[in-house]
């Protein structure tokens, strides 16, 4: 165990945790906004997959990761419009619709990958962009300021999203329609339009999350996300629908995963105990969810469609 508590290993562990947390943090931020407005989207995983493939394929064909990111966000917006039509306009049951979106994303990206790419082809991906001066700070620089630009963007979006939700009129409307849409409606807030906005934004985040994943590993493969979209949904509950806490949950999940990897790499754990330890992030999440659920309530109108007539 002593080899783990060296500066270099601890620094690598924390930096790895931040890297691992980035895709599901991005998706969770968007999902938090959507749920604050009363819309649950279980299709985050599917949209992440579509975003991942879109970014990968665009980068493969054009050589531009920026174009890949843009296309992933655009595809996310399109998926958001589809989901908004189903859930806001048609009042589809949100859980079932989300699962449909997930299955669609899983199958559709596999189909496209088989037909358009075939054998996995590596792409350069998005490289590191050390922040001048800050990245030179001993240890802290490597942990926080020596990542790719999407990592910085993800963590920069936390205070921005917090500000949007808590300090703007739009955020006030979002919170209001997530609690009592009828009351918000009587005050002149367009519930369905606002929810459409939040769904589109949330899906853009999911598309960006997929892009972050594909461009970090520099490749696409069937079911690339491997459950990260569902982790993002769990993090929303973990973080009690508050952006800073969602970020804390993502970091905790990422750092625990990174720690387990380091322990295995260093041979601190092996065999059956190693297999058990691999479940640590999930078990930790469940424990925190149990604790959180006793103290915090979900938005009152979550999963409830709004119909002025009824």
């Amino acid at each position, binding site marked *: 165990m002593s080899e783990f508590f060296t500066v270099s290993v601890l620094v690598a562990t924390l930096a790895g945790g931040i890297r691992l947390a980035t895709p599901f943090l991005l998706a969770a931020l968007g999902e938090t906004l959507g749920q604050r407005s009363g819309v649950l989207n279980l299709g985050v995983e599917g949209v992440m997959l579509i975003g991942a493939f879109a970014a990968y394929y665009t980068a493969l064909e054009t050589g531009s990761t920026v174009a890949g990111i843009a296309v992933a966000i655009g595809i996310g917006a399109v998926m958001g419009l589809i989901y908004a039509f189903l859930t806001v306009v048609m009042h589809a049951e949100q859980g079932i619709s989300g699962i449909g979106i997930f299955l669609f994303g899983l199958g559709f990206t596999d189909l496209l990958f*088989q037909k358009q790419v075939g054998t996995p082809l590596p792409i350069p*991906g998005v490289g590191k962009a050390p922040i001048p001066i800050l990245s030179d700070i001993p240890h802290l620089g490597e942990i926080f300021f020596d990542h790719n630009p999407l990592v910085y963007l993800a963590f920069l979006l936390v205070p921005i999203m917090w500000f949007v939700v808590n300090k703007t009129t739009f955020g006030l409307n979002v919170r209001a329609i997530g609690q009592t849409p009828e009351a918000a409606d009587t005050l002149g807030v367009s519930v369905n339009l606002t929810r459409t906005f939040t769904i589109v934004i949330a899906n853009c985040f999911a598309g960006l999350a997929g892009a972050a994943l594909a461009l970090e590993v520099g490749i696409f493969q069937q079911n690339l996300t491997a459950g990260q979209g569902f982790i993002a949904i769990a993090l929303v509950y973990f973080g009690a629908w508050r952006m800073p806490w969602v970020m804390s949950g993502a970091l905790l999940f990422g750092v625990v995963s990174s720690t387990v*990897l380091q322990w295995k790499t260093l041979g601190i754990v092996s065999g059956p105990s190693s297999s058990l330890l691999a479940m640590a992030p999930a078990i930790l999440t469940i424990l925190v969810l149990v604790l959180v659920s006793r103290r915090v309530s979900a938005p009152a109108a979550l999963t409830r469609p709004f119909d002025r*007539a009824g």
Partner: protein
Amino acid sequence: MRKQSRTFTLLLALLAAFALLAAACGSDGGDDGAASDDGDGTSATEPAGDDGDDGGGGDALRIAVVAPSASNDLAFTQSMVDAVNAIGETRDIQFDVTDGTFVVEDAAAALRGYAEDGFDLVVAHGSQYGGPLQEIAPDFPDVSFAWGTAADTFGLPNVYAYTVRADEGGFVMGTIAAQLSESGVIGVVGPVEVGDAKLYVDGFAAGATNQDPAVTVNVNYIESFSDVALAAEAATAHVGNGADVLTGSAQMVVGATGVATESGVAWFGTQANQTALGPDVVVASQVYHWEVVLADIIAGIDSGTLGGEVFIATLANGGLVIEYNDGFGLDDAVRTAADATAAGIADGSISTGIE
């Protein structure tokens, strides 16, 4: 309101149908027949000899494969798809594949479906498929099933088992890795500590330490066959801890090969030729040539024996082949020594020490 509800129901049903269609199309390359084998191993399906639609197949041997990952994963599933395509070059076959069946229940449905369709040989290409196969095979006594990697036929007369001595090629590549490593640290990214992955990893570690006892081989099983991001992070952890040679097994290693390329670290592949994943860093790949095993199974079927035997791919019988990447520029002396080690394992004069 009621009219809107009906409309919604219709739309939801359409979405669900579309999703299921996409999922089915995505994971099953069996119906399109578009991807033909062009020799680079990218074929997902290759109906040979017959139109394949009416289930007739004429004299063609009808072979179906059910496998967990994509047909072109450059790993486990592709090794079997390539093998059946190789068989198709020597005799008339009709080939169908259902890939991407990580969910065992989906695989079970596919296995039963192929048996009901009257395929001559149904290959359950995944050790996790043993349970359902044990239930399905007795219902179709005239259909031959093959299950791998495994060494158990359940005592059923219509089940063949096949496996691979992955430790043999692993041992050979371990000896090369030990000679390439300057730091004396080698990293291994494994999926789950079972089956041919464990054999390969154990053989690789044994070969490396046999070549140079001072070498440290760090093994990291990430407990997933599909988590590419975790595999990449595991490789990053290895490099961070001083590894200058990496290897790994299973389809999620495409994440780790990216790290190897980015870090300029040598990579050894297994299951399929992984040179395409890192033309500058892949030293060699241990390639599974299941066609050696399939040829024995098919010979048995031709003679009326539908199962009951276990076949093993080895260096000796050509079921395992070390394929080098000429673009890496491996030192000739190292390669010659490795070939000698492979020959020694094949003739029994060298043991990997792995049981």
